[in-house]
């Protein structure tokens, strides 16, 4: 199977430049060749496992992180919000 590295990099939101392309292409291709070694069996159903449902906690109000704690690691904040580059003009 041949991989389109530029497309996968875009989907992964990782900038890959033209001069790195050959390098990543070779490495990714080797990885894919390695993981192709799988038995010839029907594919699995990805439906949730009915016998082992994930436990949910009760929906109760409890103390969580304060807003300033949530924001303390953000590269840029303003008026108690995360700041991101413009998404529209």
């Amino acid at each position: 199977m041949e991989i389109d590295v530029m497309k996968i990099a875009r989907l992964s939101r990782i900038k890959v430049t033209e001069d790195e392309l050959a390098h990543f292409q070779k490495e990714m291709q080797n990885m894919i060749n390695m993981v192709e070694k799988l038995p010839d069996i029907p594919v699995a159903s990805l439906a949730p496992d009915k016998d082992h449902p994930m436990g949910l906690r009760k929906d109760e109000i409890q103390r969580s992180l304060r807003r300033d704690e949530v924001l303390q690691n953000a590269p840029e904040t303003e008026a108690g919000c995360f700041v991101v580059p413009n998404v529209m003009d």
Partner: protein
Amino acid sequence: MNLYEMSAAMLARKLRNKECSSQEITQSVLGRIQAVEGQVGAYITLTPEQALETAKQVDKRLAAGEKLAPLAGIPIGIKDNICTKDVVTTCASKMLHNFVPPYSAYVVRQVERAGMPILGKLNMDEFAMGSSCENSHYKKTKNPRDLTRVPGGSSGGSAAAVTAGEAILALGSDTGGSIRQPAAYCGTVGLKPTYGSVSRYGLVAFASSLDQIGPLGRTVEDVAMLYSLISGYDPKDATSVNRTYTDFVAGLNDFQVNGLKIGIPKEYFGDGVDQEIKEKVLAAIKLLEKNGAEVKEISLPSTDYALSAYYIIACAEASSNLARFDGVKYGYRSGKGEGLTEMYEYTRREGFGDEVKRRIMLGTFVLSSGYIDAYYKKAKATQAIIADEFRAAFEQVDLIMTPTAPDTAFRIGERSADPLKMYLSDICTVTVNIAGLPALSVPCGEIGRGLPVGLQMIAPHFGEDLLFKAAHYYEKISGLRLADVAAL
């Protein structure tokens, strides 16, 4: 014997008998760090003041006659992908170079409640992706048994610190062998617990269905002590299993090996495994047989497919888990690019190392439209087959024993140019994560000029008790002194 060379169990007894104080123990370990850390490079961040303050409090409370947890006053190091409130937690990545968690992981809170002084945060492969610690953005950790070699990974800092006497105990995490393989390479003991028995709350996620936090120490008893502290139900981890977790230390010495049924899966002794390693591991099993265990050859026929299934599932989950690193909520943000999407793309280009990028891209590929059936869904089906084969094997035997790694610690730089070669050092360990089983690596000898070999013992789900007993028993009869602090 220096205090830093002693086991946690010995130190706990000394503390109770007032033969030493926690401050003396902590000072001894900090002194050792000062002496050898320049050579070993196990830590990313050191927190000596915090450790000494905890030790001081423990000494006060012991003097006042309080009854404290068994590990109170015993210093520990924490892998740097486990969140520590107010102490930077980098995952050995540039992406989280300045991340100071506003909360502590469940296991860290357990450690703090018990009164264990935290020495600092340990080096690892970036986001736990790697088998040598060479993928750290910050430093390369050296193997204390031979400084020209890797300590293994990804919990290489944890294994190296314990081996060098720079910590009495350590916490690591294991997604495909990341506790057991470095434990084997460094000649120390490491446990990958049953999936769901230790809360992952506060562990920076790599592959959530495979990740598990676990203990490393210089003796099986020490590892059992730390596992007793960190195992338990935590409602904050939706996969945490609500059951009774006992004390795993009490019955260690009562164990008799008579009648213990040991399975040897022939697939783990094939061409990919070094001949001398096979001999050491088989000799260890032979010794248990001589003492009364029954040994039986078994087969786990789908083992050959495990590495493929593992890398597909782990990378698929990583591609989703690591989507959160986008330069908005925490960590690194690039100043390059126009608009939001380019900000994401440049942040992730500059913040992640190559191995992390490769795995995110592989994960994105195996989940992408047109390929998900051939790769991801097939890997999940293979996972079910591998788990079934283990289930069937455990109807015949109590424990399965294999080498932990197919080779001994390799030289620094030897495999960094070839990611595929690096992946091969996980061939004996990934199946355990795929099946959610517990497994322990215990030293079983050395090859050449002192390179340790690890014996991997695998138990059915929640079989940690038997793992500790059998491994502790082996430790006693083998007469090996490998788990001693490395001479540096």
